[in-house]
C-alpha cells in the first residue's frame, strides 16, 4: 500500500512538472498598415515591446505582393534593443487599403501576455510623398 502511494505520488509529480509552462514560448505578431486609399510604397516603423521578455527571432514579409519580401531591420537599433523595420517597393502594384506588411516571429519569456505596439515613423507613396496612414499590430494566428 505504501509502495502504491509512493508510485501515485511520483507519477503525479511527474505530470505536474510536465504541465508547467515552459520558460520561453514562441508566437507571432502581424504588423498592418492602413494607407487610407493612398498607394503605400514605403514605410518605416518601430515595434515596441519589453526587450527583457520579447525577442525578435524572425521577420516575415507581408500579404500584398509589394511587401512580400521581408522588411529589413536596423541592426544598430536592434543592438540597442529597438526593432525598427523598413520596406520600399518602387513598383506600381501597391496596396491602398489595410494590409499586413510584416509578421514578426517572437520568442516570449514568461507566462503573462506582453504589451506590444508599433509606431509609424513614416509612410510614403510612390511619388515620394508622405501619406496619412495608421499602423496596427495584432497577434498572428497559429497555422
Amino acid at each position, binding site marked *: 500500500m505504501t*509502495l502504491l502511494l509512493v*508510485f501515485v505520488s*511520483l*507519477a503525479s509529480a511527474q505530470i505536474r512538472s*510536465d*504541465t508547467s*509552462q*515552459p520558460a520561453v*514560448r*514562441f*508566437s*507571432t505578431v*502581424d504588423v498592418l498598415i492602413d494607407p487610407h486609399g493612398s498607394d503605400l510604397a*514605403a514605410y*518605416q516603423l*518601430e515595434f*515596441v515591446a519589453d526587450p527583457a521578455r520579447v525577442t*525578435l*527571432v*524572425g521577420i*516575415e*514579409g507581408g500579404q500584398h505582393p509589394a511587401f*512580400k*519580401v*521581408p522588411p*529589413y*531591420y*536596423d541592426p*544598430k537599433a*536592434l*543592438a540597442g534593443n529597438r526593432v*525598427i523595420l*523598413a*520596406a*520600399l517597393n*518602387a513598383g506600381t502594384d501597391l496596396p491602398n487599403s*489595410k494590409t499586413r506588411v510584416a509578421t514578426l*516571429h517572437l*520568442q516570449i519569456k514568461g507566462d503573462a501576455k506582453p504589451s*506590444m*505596439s508599433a*509606431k*509609424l*515613423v*513614416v*509612410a*510614403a507613396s510612390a511619388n*515620394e510623398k*508622405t501619406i*496619412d*496612414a*495608421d499602423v*496596427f*499590430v*495584432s*497577434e*498572428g*494566428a*497559429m*497555422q
Partner: protein
Amino acid sequence: MRLIATCVLLTVACLLLVLTVIVGCSTSPHQVVSQSASAPAAGSSVRPMDKTRADGTLTANVLNQIVGGAAAYDPTTNILISGNSNNRGVTSGQTLGTGRSYGLPPMIEEQRRMSEGMGGAVPPRAAASDLIVSGQLAQQAPPQGQQIAPPRIITPLQDEELWIISKPASQQPQNVLAAPDDRDPGSGALLARVADKPEQIPVPLKHTDVKASIDGYIATVDVTQQYHNPFNEKIEAVYVFPLPQNAAVNEFVMTIGDRKIRGIIREREEAQQIYDAAKAQGYTASLLTQERPNVFTQSVANIEPGKEIDIDVKYFHTLTYVDGWYEWDFPMVVGPRFNPPYSTSGIGAVQVGGTGISGQKTEIQYLRPDQRSGHDISLAVQIDAGVKIEQIESVNHKIIKTVDDQMPPNAHGTASGRATVVLNPADSIPNKDFVLRYKVAGHTLKSGLVIQRDPSGNGGYFTLMLVPPASMQNLPRQPLEMVFTLDVSGSMTGQPIEQSRRAIQYALAHMNPQDTFQIVRFANDSETMTPNPVPATPQNIRRAQQFIQTMSAGGGTMMMEGIKKSLAFERDPQRLRFVAFLTDGFIGNETEILGAVHDNLKDSRIFSFGVGSAPNRYLLDHMARMGAGAAAYLSLNDNPDEVMAAYFERISHPAMTDVKIDFGLMQASDVFPSKIPDVFVGRPVILTGRFKGNGETTIHLKGRVAGEDRDIAIPVRFDQSASTHSGIAAVWARMKIADLADQSTYDMSQDFETPIKQVALDYSLMSQYTSFVAVDSSHKTEGDHGTTLAVPLPVPDGVRYDTTVQQRQGAPVVAGHE
C-alpha cells in the same frame, strides 16, 4: 527473507521507474507547450493592440517621442526626421542611380538601393538525382510521392558504423553530425550498388545555387541551400560548408514554401539558445554559426517529411587582382583538417557515421571515394568589369561563357566590360573551389576609390585599391635568403605534393647566384635540408633536388614545427629572408599558427602557396598578410612553373615598404588593415575605411622603394559623382573584424571579443561571436525535434580519403583516390 524483500523492492522500483518514464513520455513538454501557446484561430478578426496615426498632432507627438524633437537625426537607428509634421521623416530629395528622386528616411533609401542589386535569371533548381535504390531500402521504399523512414539506432555496438547516432547533447560535438552509412546490417539503409557506379547516400541537402554579381572589384553573392526531407519522420539537417574568408555575410533568409523569414543577427550564445528552444518545442528554425572565417555551420531544425526549406545567405567581398587578372573564388567544400593531439577546438574529419571519434568541437563527415550524395551545385556569375575584359578562365571547372547581346564579342568571346559565366551542369559536384579569373585590358588599371555614403549624408565608407607604380618593375632586388617550406603530410599525398615538387624545382633553377636557400619539410615533425641556408650553387641545387625527390607524404600536419624551422633560426644580416610556404592548409589550429607566425616573423616575409583544389584560403591569406608577403594558389590544374615564375617576378623587384597614406581632405579614419602591407609589383593593395566630407582630393601613397622615398599622387572624388557600391560598409566592417581577429591571435592582453561582437551586431554580420537565427513561430510541427542528419562532404578533388579521414576502429579499409 531479507533477500526476498530486497528483490521485491528492486522489482517495484524498476516498475515505478518504467511507469514514470511512460507517463513522462505520454505528456511530453511539447504537447503542453502547444496548448499553452495556442493563438486565436485563423481567420479571426484583427484585434488592434496599438494604433498610431501618421498624420496630425498625434503622429507628430509620437515622432517627437521617438527622436526627441521635431527635427533630429538618430545615428544609432539611422532615423532621420526633418521638417514639421507635414514633412515627416523626409530628407531633402536625393537623386539616386535610377534617376528617381526619393525623399525617404535613410534606412528606406538604403533598402531601395539594395533592392536594385543584381538581377539576372535564376538558374533552375537541380533535377531530382537518379538514386539507385535496392536491397532493404528498396523494400522499404514507399510508392512514389511517399517518404522513407530514417532508421533509428540508439545503441552503437563496437566497430559498428551507424545510420543515426543519438546521444545526450552534452556528449556530442557542438555540431551534432550523424549521417547514414550503408554498411549497417539491419539499419534499413543498405543500398545495393550497381557495379562501377558510386553508391548514393541520401542527404538532407539537395542543391546549392550560387548567384554572384561582380561590379568592379566587389562581388555580391547570393547562396541558396535547398534542404529537403525525403524521410517519413522529422529531421534536423546540419551542414558544414565554406565561404570565402573575407565574406561579409550580412543577410540570411529562411524560405518555407512561399514564405520568407528574415533571420536576425544575435550574439552567438543567444542565437544558439533561441534555436535550441525552438527546436525542442517543434518549431522550424535555422541557425548559422561561424566555425572559422571561412567555415560555417548551417543547422535547420524540424524539417517535416516531404518538406523543403531554402536558406539564402548573402555576402559581399572584394576580389583579388594579380598581374592583370582579377580572381573570384567560391569554395565548395571544406578540406579534411588535421588537429594536433592536444586540440579539442579544431575541425575533425571523420567517416560517415563517425560522430564523436575525432574529439573535436566541430566535425565533418566525409564520403568514401565510392560514395556520392545527391547534393549538387549550380553557379552563375555576372561580371561588370567597367573596362574591357580580354580573357576569362575557370581554373577547376568547366564553364559556359556568354556575352552581352548588345555588344559584339571580342576575339576571346567576351564583350567589352560585361560577361556572364555559368558553371557547366556536367561539373556540378561540389568538391573543389570555383576559381574564376578574368583579364582586363592591359595597363588600364589605376588606383581607384569606391564609396558608400552614410545615411546621414556626412561622409561614409570607402575602399581604395592601390596599384603599385609600373616604374617599380625597373629596379633590381637585393640578395635573398630563400626558404622553401613544404607540407608533406597525408593530405598532400599524390597530386598536391607533385605540384609542390615541380614548383620548388622551378624555383631552384631560377635563384640568383648571390642568394642562399634552405628547404624545410614538415608533417608529424620537421626537417631541414642543411643545418643552415646554403649558397645557390649548382652543387647545392642538385642536393636540394635530391632532397625533394626523396620526400614522401604521410602523417599529420604539425605546421607549428614547420613554422619554427622556417623562421626561428639565425638571421643573415646581408639578406632579406623570404619564406615560401607550400601547403593545403588543412589544419584546425589556425589561430595558434597565425600567432606563431607573428611571434617568429621578425623581418622575414612569408609568401604562402595554397596547393590543391580546395586549400584553406583563410590560413594562407592571413599567413601572408601577417608575414608581410602575399598569397598565391597552385591548383591541381595550374602549371607550377607559371605560378612560381609569377612569384619570382614578384620578388625580383623591391617592394614599397614603410607605406603611409595621406588621405588629404577625406579625413579618413578606421582604415583597415591597420598595418598597411608592403606593396609588391603586380599586387595592388585594398584598403577600406571611413571618411568625412564631400568633394575631391589627392591621396598620397608614401613609402620607400630600394632605399628611396616615393610619393605617389592619386586623385580621387568622394562627392556625388564618385563610384558607389552598397556593400562597402559591410566590407569595411568585415575587414575591421578580420583585423581585430588577427590581433587576437598574438595579443592576449586585450579584450577583442567585445569590439568584434559590437561591430558584427551593428552591421548585421556573421563573426565568431555572432550568429543568424530564424524561427517560424507561426507553425508548430508535431512530435519531438526528430533525427539529426549531417550532410557528408566529398573529400576535395585530388585529396586521398584514406590519408585524411579518421575512421572508426575496425572500419573496412578504403582505398583513396587521386
